């Protein structure tokens, strides 16, 4: 039957399918657009930052060395902003690391499927709440809480500690989910070997599984630091509304410079505050936030790349 239905001339000659080529080209363009995004980021940040460093008012040396950021009198030293960023990020990690890691260990090694079914959605909700809401939470709950515990004289209304703690809460889901993935990747046989030697569940979890998952957990960590550094709204709302300028020798190291309970503006917080006003293009202020943005981009990108190195390492071992 089929033989009659076949066309008389049989040919395998390559057919022209321009549609296929066009579609493939379009899809490639879609994928390549992401490269353009990166190029755009690097070019725009770099270009504006270059204008900033080349201007008479600022210089790269000052940017990297001065401990004062006072655009009004043309002081452009990034250290006050970096210091505040480090304070909030370190505070955040102090909260997020133990809680996130403990949650991951509990979920991976102890929790029954039913408990996991309850906890995982809660963590997902926590991860899905917009950062501006966390900012509100920091200002209206965490700050009053700190002030009532430590005294209103100790804790300023805007302070890096409150913002840092809340940033920590908001990255708990990130730490726990990445760490849990790392713990999951540890083969069952390793756990069985440990039980076979008479180890308890705790000993197995902490002495066998945890070290085996270390590079994955480190990766989770590094990514979380990057996230904390790039986090914006919480610090913009709760950390401070002006750079914490300082002078070594004059300002008390622990009472002011490193004190998390005083106000301090982070890199991201500063960008938001400056660009939220009516910022005119081609002003030194406009260019300066791009210099900060470039620094932020370089720091977070390096951390993310570092993190992926760690992930690649544990994948290499177990997959």
């Amino acid at each position: 039957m089929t033989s009659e239905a076949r066309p008389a001339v049989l040919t395998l000659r390559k057919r022209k399918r321009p549609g296929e080529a066009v579609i493939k080209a379009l899809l490639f363009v879609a994928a390549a657009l992401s490269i353009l995004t990166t190029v755009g980021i690097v070019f725009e940040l770099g270009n504006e930052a270059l204008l900033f460093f080349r201007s008479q008012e600022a210089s790269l040396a000052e940017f990297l060395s001065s401990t004062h950021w006072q655009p009004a009198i043309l002081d452009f030293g990034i250290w006050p902003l970096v210091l505040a960023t480090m304070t909030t990020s370190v505070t955040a990690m102090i909260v997020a690391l133990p809680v996130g890691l403990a949650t991951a260990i509990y979920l991976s090694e102890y929790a029954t499927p039913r408990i996991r079914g309850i906890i995982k959605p809660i963590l997902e909700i926590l991860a899905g709440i917009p950062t501006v809401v966390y900012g509100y939470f920091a200002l209206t709950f965490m700050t009053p809480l700190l002030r009532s515990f430590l005294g209103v004289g100790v804790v300023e209304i805007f302070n890096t500690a409150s913002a840092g703690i809340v940033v920590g809460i908001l990255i708990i889901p990130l730490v726990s989910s990445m760490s849990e993935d790392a713990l999951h990747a540890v083969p069952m046989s390793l756990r069985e070997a440990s039980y076979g030697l008479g180890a308890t569940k705790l000993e197995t979890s902490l002495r066998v599984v945890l070290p085996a998952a270390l590079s994955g957990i480190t990766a989770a960590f590094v990514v979380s630091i990057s996230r904390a550094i790039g986090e914006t709204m919480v610090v913009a709302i709760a950390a401070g509304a002006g750079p914490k300028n300082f002078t070594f020798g004059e300002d008390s190291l622990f009472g002011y410079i490193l004190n998390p309970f005083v106000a301090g503006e982070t890199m991201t917080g500063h960008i938001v505050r400056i660009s939220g006003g009516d910022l005119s293009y081609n002003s030194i202020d406009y260019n300066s936030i791009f210099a900060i943005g470039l620094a932020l981009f370089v720091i977070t990108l390096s951390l993310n790349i570092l993190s992926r190195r760690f992930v690649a390492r544990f994948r290499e071992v177990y997959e």
Partner: protein
Amino acid sequence: MTTVGATDLSEGMSLDLNLPVGTKAEADSGPAAMETLYLNVFYGGFRAIKDADLSFADKQITALIGPSGCGKSTLLRTLNRMNDLVPGARVEGEVRFQGQNIFDSAVDPVELRRRVGMVFQKPNPFPKSIYQNVAWGARINGFKENLDDLVEHSLVQAALWDEVKDKLDESGYSLSGGQQQRLCIARAIAVKPEIILMDEPTSALDPVATLRIEELIQDLKVNYTIIIVTHNMQQAARASDHTVFINMDSNRAGYVVESGATGTLFTKPVRQETEDYITGRFG
């Protein structure tokens, strides 16, 4: 043929290929639907098929047998260039179909696959209705006539029509494994191929379903050239007209040991290797 073997004298195992072991010389095989000439298939640096010279008789059933991992499936997938989809796959030599080398740059692999259909080891119907499963291939190949007739005709040919005619709108997954495989055969038939390649089509099925497929294959040979990979000696012996025995050399490259009429190959194999394999004294 002989010249091919001569080039490989250095490789020891190939020495025997100079012996007259059937293949194209087979008198009763009639015209060839497809031939392979000095075919080598590589995955990256690994050679999976070595110097295969074969001829597949038109409107007959040819079985490919051999130990697992010997490259039977690779050889089969080379015949309709499904191997193109595997990254790193590379081919040397020729496969001639309709007088053309299918690896010629002018050959359209899509059109080739339309005309050299394939049925896979595990039934893989599309997650669509039974009707759509059969109709899809024809539709994308620009079939302009009555689709209902085509679907019915294909399902009748695949001996599935009576079982599904009242539920053509149900999902292909609602069928049993054996029915799914016949659906896949109907699907392959619907695009009017000349050759149907079958890669261990019954290995995932129960004996009853296997029997039905084997009967179906016999019916199909009236219209189609069928090349079937099987690791079941009984199946090859019962269900095929010709058999090709493929074995692995010390580098795990598959080579053709012997090919010929099934009756002859199973009862009076030329090579000791073949006899060892089919009598289970292998390995």
